[in-house]
């Protein structure tokens, strides 16, 4: 028997009660989230609104609006959550947010606390003010042009982890099962274990996975640690919920101060005393757990004295957070590894990306583009490529894949316009885009010291074969030589026509000199930037 059932007041509960409806809602949104991650793949994207949860995230909308001054495409969906919060309080946190659901589920699954410890762990603590400080820091930085919200925004964080760590992990487990379980002649034919996509890898996904693992593990120390202490979205909704119409109300005439309402309080919002409205997730557990029916979720008949509506952050803390934000901005911006004079030759942005500074004002590091990419070329940037500011933003790694000519999936799924939505016509510079020419990601170069025909008199030219432009941007000078063994060989020595090169990187991806490629693409000449231009005249377009 559960402890509650031993009490003299115990009455069996109705099946159709708020907590059960809440579980249905949480399951729905969690499954929808996982389905959206799964469906964001080239053969499964069929016009479904896979980015909706990111677009509904009001913090994404607000921070990008602060940074850019505009609201991109579908980011207005965030108003839905804002309206919901103004009426019902922070219901997003415990009814919709899949990351909150994950934490709640793990906390429930691994709960080892005895009832008395549980009550203690669900009392409000001073440290919970921290999220309001984090929100202040992030919003101030966004307003000054450095969008870092994606580091801790729960939807971005969860999407990033699922796309780069969880989904490839499940694929590779299937593949390992296929390799290890071979029993000839049985139904257990190892060829049947098909992950459905080719194996994907993401550079540095270990650390992204570790962040999730660490945050989930913190539930053992403090229940809903991330939601109560760190979540900037929760903080934003907490600030808004102070004026919510509905809230948990405690009938002081019925209440016997037994504290049973603390046994499963998700938000640690002190329902046993003065309700801290901005902390309450509206999980409704306290209503279930109250043996006296003293608690209700109501708009009418609220007790004005039994509530603390405002977040627990004082003016000093706010000012201090502001100073941290204002000080962090120049530290991050002046890091010097991503300026127009000094930028990494590996900082190749996906097609449709806006110019680098604007890109950094928009990218929320959700890594949805990485998930949509059919060739695995898009990778989360490390400090080396994009500095501290650009950590986990998308870059193209042409050792792993290449940018497919007629694919614009990353630009279609990007919720914030860091990768602006483009059509294939615009990408290829055809039709009405003929004047401006194709989208160029960079320019290919040859390392003639490593190229087989150039350096070693061995025929190759895979790069020319796969070059997709017409006419080809890699062409050859064909000569016949007598090699050191006396054989006559025809060498097609490749060279680049930079006017035609679009930087798609298929030459680098297919180059057989695999460790350090004999042909490689760097971002110079990318069409999104005037500063990073290479050619003054494009001989192909001027013709």
């Amino acid at each position, binding site marked *: 028997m559960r402890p509650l059932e031993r009490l003299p007041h115990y009455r069996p509960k109705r099946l159709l009660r708020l907590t059960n409806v809440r579980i249905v809602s949480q399951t729905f949104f969690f499954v929808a989230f996982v389905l959206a991650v799964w469906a964001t793949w080239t053969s499964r994207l069929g016009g479904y609104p896979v980015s909706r949860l990111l677009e509904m995230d009001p913090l994404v909308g607000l921070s990008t609006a602060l940074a850019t001054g505009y609201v991109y495409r579908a980011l207005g969906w965030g108003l839905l959550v804002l309206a919901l919060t103004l009426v019902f309080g922070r219901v997003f946190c415990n009814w919709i947010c899949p990351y909150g659901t994950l934490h709640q589920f793990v906390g429930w699954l691994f709960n080892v606390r005895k009832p008395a410890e549980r009550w203690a762990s669900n009392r409000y603590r001073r440290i919970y003010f921290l999220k309001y400080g984090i929100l202040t820091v992030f919003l101030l930085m966004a307003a000054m042009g450095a969008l870092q919200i994606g580091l801790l925004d729960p939807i971005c964080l969860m999407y990033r982890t699922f796309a780069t760590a969880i989904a490839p992990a499940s694929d590779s487990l299937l593949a390992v099962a296929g390799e290890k379980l071979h029993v000839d002649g049985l139904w257990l034919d190892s*060829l049947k274990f098909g*992950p459905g996509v080719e194996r994907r890898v993401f550079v540095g996904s270990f650390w992204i996975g570790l962040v999730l693992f660490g945050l989930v593990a913190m539930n053992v120390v403090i229940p809903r640690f991330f939601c109560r202490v760190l979540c900037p979205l929760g903080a934003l909704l907490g600030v808004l919920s102070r004026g919510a119409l509905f809230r948990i109300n405690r009938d002081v005439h019925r209440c016997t101060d037994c504290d049973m309402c603390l046994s499963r309080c998700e938000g640690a919002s002190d329902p046993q005393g003065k309700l801290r409205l901005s902390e309450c997730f509206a999980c409704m557990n306290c209503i279930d757990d109250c043996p006296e029916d003293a608690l209700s979720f109501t708009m009418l008949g609220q007790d004005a004295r039994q509530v603390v509506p405002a977040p627990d952050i004082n003016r000093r803390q706010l000012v201090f957070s502001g100073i941290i934000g204002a000080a962090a901005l120049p530290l991050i911006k002046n890091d010097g590894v991503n300026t127009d004079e000094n930028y990494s030759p590996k900082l190749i942005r996906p097609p449709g990306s806006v110019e680098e500074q604007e890109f950094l004002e928009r990218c929320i590091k959700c890594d949805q583009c990485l998930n949509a990419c059919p060739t695995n070329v898009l990778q989360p940037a490390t400090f080396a490529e994009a500095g501290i500011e650009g950590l986990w933003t998308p870059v193209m790694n042409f050792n792993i894949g290449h940018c497919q*000519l007629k694919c614009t999936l990353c630009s279609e799924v990007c919720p914030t316009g860091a990768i602006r939505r483009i059509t294939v016509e615009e990408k290829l510079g055809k039709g009405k885009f003929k004047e401006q020419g194709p989208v160029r990601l960079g320019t290919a170069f040859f390392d003639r010291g490593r190229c087989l025909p150039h350096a070693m008199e061995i025929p190759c030219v895979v790069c020319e*074969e796969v070059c997709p432009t*017409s006419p080809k941007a890699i062409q050859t000078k064909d000569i016949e030589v007598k090699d050191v063994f006396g054989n006559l060989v025809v060498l097609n020595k490749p060279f680049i026509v930079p006017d035609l090169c679009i930087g798609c990187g298929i030459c680098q991806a297919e180059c057989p000199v695999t460790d350090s490629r004999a042909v490689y693409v760097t971002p110079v000449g990318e069409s999104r930037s005037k500063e990073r231009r290479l050619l003054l005249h494009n001989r192909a377009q001027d013709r």
Partner: protein
Amino acid sequence: MARDDKHPTRHPDYERKPLSRRAFAARIAAVAGVGGAAAYLAGAPADWPLSLRDPTGLRSQPVHRPVTLRDYRVEKPSGAPDVSVFRGTGDAMERLRRALEPLGGITHYVRPGDIVLVKPNVAFDRSPNLGATSNPELLEALVRLLLVDARAQEVRVADNPIESPADCFAKSGIRQAAERGGGRVYLPDSNAFRVLSTPGATLIAEWPIFRRPLTNVDRVIGIAPVKDHNLCQASMGIKNWYGLLGGRRNQFHQDIHEIVSDLALMMKPTLTILDGAHVLMKNGPTGGDPSDVKPGDAVMVGVDPVALDAWAFEHVLERGRDYPQYLHLAEEKGAGRVDWQGRVREERA
């Protein structure tokens, strides 16, 4: 309290644990049993049963059990040519049927209940009119012919493209064509490849091949475009089998003619079909510009892939008799004969 001789100041919580002779013996026996078994597994000479000992490090090397491919050829009817060409525009099904007629029709080659693999060229993410990939209309007609006329059990359509498989199949129109016809598309993934043994091959004596769609297959039909190739002059029926290879196959460009002739040895197809509707005359094998493509009207079917490619090189690509070296190498390896004279029947609508 009774006096304890051994522990004069006995603690109230202390309880002496007895160890009987029997328990001691059992404990020793268990240790000896587990330890002895472990010692045997680890230390016994390698050829003793159950021994795990690996004195040289070679025993633990992975053992490849290479798969082999059958010879999928079928004896043609007596008097039939080795290559049949039909020239004419119009319905793809009609053109294909007419091209197959002189060879005895599809029912001569495929029995009811057969599982047939159809291998198109879907190497690149290109639309069908650019001539870089197989013609989807002809593929659909072939799939229908196999399922309806020849009553095949299953028609599989598979290729391992250079670009993203899902995209290449979708944008070349091959996936839709295969599914409209009733075929089943197999896309490669990390667990679809096995090492194939091809005795007599120079470069791919043992090489990973896209194995899943080949499992339990009775007949194999290649269907390819005729196109220019930057390195080996032309990519036609034999070069099409390149799309079944896995591994770092881009090394093969160092000896392209050898690898293409090896492919003729690796795959001995039931039939090879070439389509001359969109011929990529230059800028191959990728193309990309409609002006690289020349429209044509030929459908070519062959039981001798070498003669078929030679004929198409001469008559469809219009490159004369200076055939690519790989065709001569393929003839040396016994895959067919380059000289097509007297073995081709050409008909017009």
